[in-house]
């Protein structure tokens, strides 16, 4: 088993250990976070072309794990985000409102399950294996959502399961049609026929549910609103990204010859609609967590808005990098924002935005983390969000796609409107406490703010590492390697 296998196996091992150790299993994150971060960093620095055939079965039967640019960035960002969320959960246990120890105990195995599923999903090119990873991540996501509200989780579960089956039906059609489900093999034999179009349509619809793209986003805000902060952070940062990455595999690797520009513009249009709709909904919220959740709906829109820009570009690598970096920046910034929001809500009088008054004095570090994350989400420089938006906006303008360019610009402004509303509330004096609120001491120790601050800081620092990240994202891009990947047999 090489590094690629370890990235999946190690979290699974930690999951089993966490299950066995029960209460004290939470300390495992102290080992898991650095180990996984190290592995992921190693992955990012591997020479191109590293692959693993699981169990030494050759294609088309075997399962190919492969580290292309998207996988490297997503696995690395995922390791940093999940590790930070885990460490944060140590100092700020996700007890939920009923605060049971049982909730905290179930959190850890779920975290590792999602970690393993997400890594496998980012790395594999096998559409059926992707189904399995999708289920792993969905299962963990539903259970995490259930830590907040069972009803919302059940709603999420039903729609997710239906989506999974639609995806599986698509896989069935592809198996019958091509006798393979490997993306790299499909790319060579893909032809335009009814079965393929149906399969692609079913799978896309299913994945749009998982990625929470408007109008399939219905499950996301209620599931996020009630869940404890670390769970929300995992849902928004990791769970929705897997659906997006699988869609990339389908649309740009397996079937680039079939996905016509009209279909791409449908996805792009949905993305644009998601940006506008999500932003407007976020502006209408008067509670903090639904605001952040609707911001995810809007941010996911950018990822799909990029689809026609990548496909339409003469030199697609910069739009591709913009799309990938947006995913990574959103992971970091949104996880930071949910963690910060969780701390802020614990300190505030209530869960409304108006209740946040005085927090800028009471917990400056946490509010700073929220603010830095907001900067990245708004796409203001210097930040990963800006780098991504810069690349996408350049691509849109170059192609004369002024509608998409307009949405990119307006979306950033709308994000500023709703995010600054929340920030501005933090600067207001504490409601009903008079002008002497400044004398109030900090309500949380600095240590709790470390994880959100670190993640938000990473999102900002990303803005200075653009060139390196663009280079990584260009490793083994679909259009650069038209020939089949000949995997070396793993030792």
């Amino acid at each position, binding site marked *: 088993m090489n590094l690629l296998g370890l990235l999946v196996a190690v979290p699974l091992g930690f999951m089993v250990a966490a299950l066995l150790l029960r209460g004290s299993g939470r300390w495992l994150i102290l080992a898991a976070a650095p180990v996984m971060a190290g592995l992921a960093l190693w992955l990012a620095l591997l020479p191109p072309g590293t692959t693993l055939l699981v169990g030494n079965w050759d294609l*088309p*039967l075997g399962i190919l794990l492969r580290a292309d640019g998207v996988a490297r960035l997503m696995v690395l960002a995922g390791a940093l985000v999940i590790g930070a969320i885990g460490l944060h959960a140590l100092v700020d246990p996700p007890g939920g409102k009923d605060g049971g120890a049982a909730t905290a105990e179930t959190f850890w195995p779920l975290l590792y399950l999602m970690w393993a599923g997400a890594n496998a999903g980012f790395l594999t090119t096998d559409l*059926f294996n992707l*189904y*399995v990873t999708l*289920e792993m991540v969905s*299962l963990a996501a*539903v*259970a995490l959502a*259930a830590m907040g*509200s*069972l*009803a*919302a*989780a*059940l*709603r999420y*579960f*039903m729609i997710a*399961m*239906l989506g*999974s*089956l639609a995806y*599986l*039906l698509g*896989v*069935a*059609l592809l*198996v*019958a049609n091509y*006798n393979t*489900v490997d993306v790299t093999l499909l790319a060579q034999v893909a032809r335009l026929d009814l079965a393929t179009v149906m399969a692609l349509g079913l799978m896309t619809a299913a994945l749009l549910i998982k990625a929470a793209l408007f109008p399939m986003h219905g499950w996301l805000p209620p599931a996020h609103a*009630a869940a404890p902060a670390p769970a929300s952070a995992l849902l928004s940062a990791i769970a929705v990204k897997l659906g997006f990455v699988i869609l990339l595999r389908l649309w740009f690797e397996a079937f680039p010859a079939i996905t016509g520009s009209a279909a791409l513009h449908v996805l792009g249009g949905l993305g644009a609609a998601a940006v506008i709709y999500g932003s407007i909904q976020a502006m209408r919220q008067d509670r903090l967590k639904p605001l952040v959740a609707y911001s995810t709906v809007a941010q996911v829109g950018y990822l799909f808005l990029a689809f026609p820009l990548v496909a339409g570009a003469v030199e697609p690598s910069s739009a591709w990098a913009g799309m990938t970096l947006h995913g990574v920046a959103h992971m970091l910034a949104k996880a930071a924002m949910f963690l910060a929001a969780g701390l802020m809500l614990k300190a505030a009088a209530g869960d409304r935005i108006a209740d946040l008054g005085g927090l800028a004095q009471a917990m400056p570090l946490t509010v700073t983390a929220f603010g830095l994350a907001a900067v990245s989400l708004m796409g203001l420089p210097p930040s990963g969000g800006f780098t991504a938006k810069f690349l996408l906006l350049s691509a849109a303008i170059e192609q004369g796609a002024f509608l998409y360019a307009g949405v990119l610009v307006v979306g950033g402004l709308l994000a500023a409107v709703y995010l600054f509303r929340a920030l501005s509330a933090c600067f207001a004096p504490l409601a009903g406490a008079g002008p002497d609120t400044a004398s109030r001491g900090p309500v949380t120790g600095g240590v709790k703010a470390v994880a959100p601050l670190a993640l938000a800081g990473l999102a900002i620092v990303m803005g200075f590492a653009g060139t390196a990240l663009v280079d990584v994202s260009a490793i083994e891009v679909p259009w650069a390697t038209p020939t089949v990947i000949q995997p070396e047999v793993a030792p």
Partner: protein
Amino acid sequence: MELLAPEPVSAGHIYAVTGAILTALGFYAFIVRRHALRQLLAVNVVGAGVFLILGGLGRGPDAIDPMPQALVITGIVVAVALTAFGAAMIVRLAEAPRSPDQGKAGKPDA
């Protein structure tokens, strides 16, 4: 072999068509029924349909292709596990005291 299944191609199609019908029925039920338990059952019917299609389409004229069968088995395992998980959640929700924000999904079927 020939005596038992003289026309394997058509047999495969029968499975597939049945599967398609089951999928449609299940999907209809999922949309119409609001109770969580019925929705779970509807999803399972969809699942059965999908597995039938997967298995049926995999039957070639000469031999049975093992790959779809392997996929079906994996799929069934996943579906069973998820159904158990969903059922557990439904039970938990039914047992939980009704708080104002979590009463909607469990409301009785019309």
